[in-house]
């Protein structure tokens, strides 16, 4: 075809906000959320295969691709996805304060020590 292939941008224009002190955690959240989507897609596909096999002895990929859930089946799937969301994104219950350990673990001192030691070492070698 003479028309150029149209590609859509994957990212939106504008600065992306981060919510955790370390943006790597937001990045991990994106990985996690996307991974849950893939699991859900596999589950729906499996569900399609099972439902098709219930009515036909053998099925082809084309049968799977052509399958579209009826409203009743989609409503079963929504209920299943809802339970799945509840299990995977199990928020820690909102409470007045956190238990022992607190909200801010402090790994900082160990780092400082190491740096000091390194400085001492370089002073000794110099």
């Amino acid at each position: 075809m003479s028309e150029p292939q149209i590609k859509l941008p994957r990212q939106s224009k504008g600065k992306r906000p981060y919510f955790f002190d370390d943006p790597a955690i937001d990045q991990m959240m994106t990985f996690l959320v996307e991974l849950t989507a893939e699991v859900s897609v596999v589950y729906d596909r499996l569900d399609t295969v099972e439902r098709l096999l219930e009515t036909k002895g053998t099925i082809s990929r084309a049968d799977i691709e052509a399958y579209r859930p009826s409203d009743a089946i989609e409503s079963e799937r929504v209920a299943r996805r809802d339970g799945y969301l509840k299990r995977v994104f199990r928020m820690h219950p909102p409470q007045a304060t956190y238990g022992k350990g607190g909200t801010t673990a402090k790994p900082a001192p160990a780092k400082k020590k190491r740096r000091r030691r390194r400085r001492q070492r370089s002073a000794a070698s110099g």
Partner: protein
Amino acid sequence: MGIVAKPQVDHAFLAKPSHDELARQSYASNLRMYTLATIGGGMRTVYDKRVKPQFEKAQGRAPKDEHEVRKVMLKDPYARAWSSMMRAAQEMVWESVVPTVERAQPELNNRIEALVGKPGVNKMGSLSLDPSTVKPKYATAVDIHLMPGNYETERTPNDATQGAFYDRGVYVYQGGMGGDNCHGIGMSLATFIARKFPNLKPKKILDIGCTVGHNLVPYCDVFPDAEIHGVDMSAPVMRYAHARAEAMGKAVHFHQMNAESLKFPDNSFDVVTSVILFHETSRTALRQILKECHRVLKPGGLMLHMELPRTATMDPYDAFYLDWDAYYNNEPYYQAYTATDMKDVIVGAGFAPDKYVEYLIPDLVWCDPAEFDAAVRGDLARGNALARWGESIKWSTYGAWK
């Protein structure tokens, strides 16, 4: 349990997802609604139980406005996790639609061009494009609500991609809760006008910033004798809107125009409306758009705009929650909009102060018909304007008679 919405109504130009793409899009809808309703619902508890008491202990008073609430809430681990998920879910909504739209092209553009461009094709409505339309900075600076490419990106002379992308993306975003044609808000507004003002009998109706016509097409059914017009700045969106309306058998006249400088003569329309437009325009543009609405409206005509609730007068927590999108979902004008006194700017645009009107209109897709009747009669309890789709949502509407 998540709400089971009807599938999007198919039409000849809707980009069709594959089996797995549909599964991914359905999941994106469910994830977004779960994050918004269930996890988002817990945010209030976090605020009441943990964040607010800590603030009060430190400051000796409650947070005074949404900005103070935002500052302390976004330090809380629950709110951070929720925010991070919300952002990722919104990105997923669009991302899940990208492969579907890309695969539909360029065949889709060619089919739309065949309908749009060929003379002699018997069409119900019309399309007029104006390449000289000036797109202001507020429309192009960021991709509004994270839709990659925004409304206006045009890749080929016949491109309608962003219209197709928006049509499917909005359905996934709404999780079908805006109706199976994403038409619920427009249908509610049109029906309200028809029932509240039965003697108005409009002959010409204009909707500004109509995008692909989701909320404009319902006017055709509610006002079958009226001539229906819609304007939007984006040519790709207008091409798609025209094709979509024709495919649905609806007569709509689409015009590529900037609502700040409409090309219609004075006193052209009986009714001028918009749906959720103003929070996507700058404050300067808002004033100019309202002046144009006044100019093109016939004397005795009605202007009504349906929008998100204004947060300026709300409880600081509710305002923070609603304005989250303004900060983190690329809605840069939402804040300015919510702080604007609409009566003030409507009067400033030339309407008489005693002709100003405002209504709360229940969403027809979800409300009890008796509630809609009450809104038409004018004795609707104000209720909760914060309610979301699937609950008893009511839309803030305001305008004026000329």
